[in-house]
């Protein structure tokens, strides 16, 4: 019986079929879409079947980390774009955060995105120079992520009708318009992320988007330009950010330098996530800082689920005397979490807990939840 088995396995191995190459092109493309493009292109060498499979790949992910020399990466980008034989690209992702690309190459990439109806564009570049504004002419875009470390040239209004998700990282946005209103023409925009963004405004920065469901603002710095001069630490009241998002359900905010936030009308707001990053010492010494934070909490009063960072909790507890004088901001809270990074913290100073939880329908349960955890941490036996 053993002999037959070994014979069978050997025969089986020798005549194993190449089931992979038999798959239709669309499935091979799906498999290759999970690989970085460097390795997807290298499949051309596997067999005759594979020579041109990659040229019709609708998902292109180019990452400089797989290339030792920047010159090689630059020519790789150029060649991939030139050899591409499909006119509908689903995803184009180019990651070169440490290696500069020439402006002609940046232009080529953006032209390619426009001419090939790219739906998801993800550019992570270092100080790119080129006609970046053309990105906003790419009407096919549903997903756009720009991580650029530069001043982003902007149209008066971004009008990308199919755009659902927009992520802007490490860019400077400038406008001399009194009403700096970038997003209101993106009628389908559902998710907006502003991460490490410098804003130079003349009056107000408007985040107005009728379909917006999720908004994340992580570390923004608002400077004010007046009379051809830029004020780098304008009074907090002048750092006006107005959010008009009637469909908003999730709001996540990392407090870096304080801003004066105004959230007009977001009746559907459910999840709020607030954290504090160690911002400039200069700013946090300003007295108004605490009051602007309290004001923001009050405007988020509809929240049902609140997650706060340990840093924010500490900041509130330091100003305990002022805290006692404030009306309770939340009226519908059902869930409260304190986090430090990804870890859940189970302790919260009672005066802060009280401030956040009183006035909500589930106050009793929330108070008990934190107290119970505190008790479990004691080594004494439970009394009742």
């Amino acid at each position, binding site marked *: 019986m053993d002999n037959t088995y070994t014979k069978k396995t050997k025969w089986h191995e020798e005549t*194993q*079929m190449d089931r992979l190459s038999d798959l239709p092109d669309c499935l091979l493309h799906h498999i290759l879409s*999970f690989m970085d493009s460097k390795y997807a292109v290298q499949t051309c060498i596997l067999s005759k079947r594979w020579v041109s499979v990659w040229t019709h790949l609708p998902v292109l992910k180019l990452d400089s980390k797989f290339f030792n020399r920047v010159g090689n990466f630059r020519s790789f980008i150029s060649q991939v774009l030139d050899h591409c034989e499909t006119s509908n690209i689903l995803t184009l992702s180019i990651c070169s955060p440490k290696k500069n690309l020439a402006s002609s190459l940046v232009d080529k990439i953006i032209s390619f995105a426009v001419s090939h109806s790219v739906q998801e564009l993800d550019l992570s570049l270092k100080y790119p120079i080129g006609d970046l504004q053309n990105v906003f002419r790419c009407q096919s875009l549903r997903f756009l992520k720009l991580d650029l470390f530069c001043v982003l040239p902007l149209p008066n209004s971004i009008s990308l009708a199919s755009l659902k998700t927009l992520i802007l990282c490490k860019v400077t946005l400038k406008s001399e318009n009194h009403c700096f209103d970038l997003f209101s023409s993106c009628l389908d925009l559902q998710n907006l992320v502003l991460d490490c963004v410098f804003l130079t405004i003349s009056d107000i920065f408007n985040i107005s988007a009728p379909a917006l469901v999720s908004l994340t603002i992580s570390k923004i710095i608002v400077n004010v330009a007046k009379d051809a001069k830029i004020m780098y630490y304008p009074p907090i009241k002048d750092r006006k950010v107005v959010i008009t998002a009637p469909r908003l359900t999730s709001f996540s905010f990392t407090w870096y330098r304080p801003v004066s936030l105004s959230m007009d009308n977001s009746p559907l707001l459910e999840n709020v996530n607030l954290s504090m990053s160690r911002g400039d010492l200069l700013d946090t010494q300003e007295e108004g800082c605490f009051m602007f934070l309290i004001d923001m909490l009050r405007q988020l009063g509809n929240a049902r689920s609140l997650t706060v960072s340990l840093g924010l909790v500490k900041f509130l507890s330091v100003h305990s005397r002022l805290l006692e004088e404030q009306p309770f901001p939340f009226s519908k809270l059902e869930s409260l979490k304190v986090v430090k990074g990804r870890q859940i913290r189970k302790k919260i100073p009672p005066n802060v807990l009280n401030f956040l939880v009183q006035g909500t329908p589930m106050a009793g349960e929330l108070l008990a939840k934190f107290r119970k955890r505190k008790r479990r941490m004691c080594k004494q036996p439970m009394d009742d």
Partner: protein
Amino acid sequence: MSSTGRKITLKSSDGETFEVDEAVALESQTIKHMIEDDCADNGIPLPNVTSKILSKVIEYCKKHVEAPKSDDRDRATSVDDELKAWDADFVKVDNSTLFDLILAANYLKIKSLLDLTCQTVADMFKGKTPNEIRKTVHIKNDFTPDEEEKVRRENQWAFE
């Protein structure tokens, strides 16, 4: 005992029948459309899927439908990790079964299963030379040495 309503009968290519909860069957967009078009009354024939593969697909769909959608967000991350570990185990199968699962997931239009199985194949390529890849998935090299050299030269820029 199942908690939700209807049961749907699925028939594999080799004549076996499988009864599943409607919610499980609806993980497949193909089956979903058949149900919506009222073609499901006498059971749904799946001539492209053998019983061996169909039972695996059903196992996958059951697990993903039952995965607790925890409202308690404290637990949400560990539930995700558990499911990921289960998925990783699920695809530890021989190549033949894997490719059958890809074809079945494609035919039945179960996106998450298609992504999982295709990602698994893509992972097989990682860190391997072309020769090693050929061995792993049994691709016959039908190039002459000259032809192979020509292709490599033409695409030199990808073989830094």
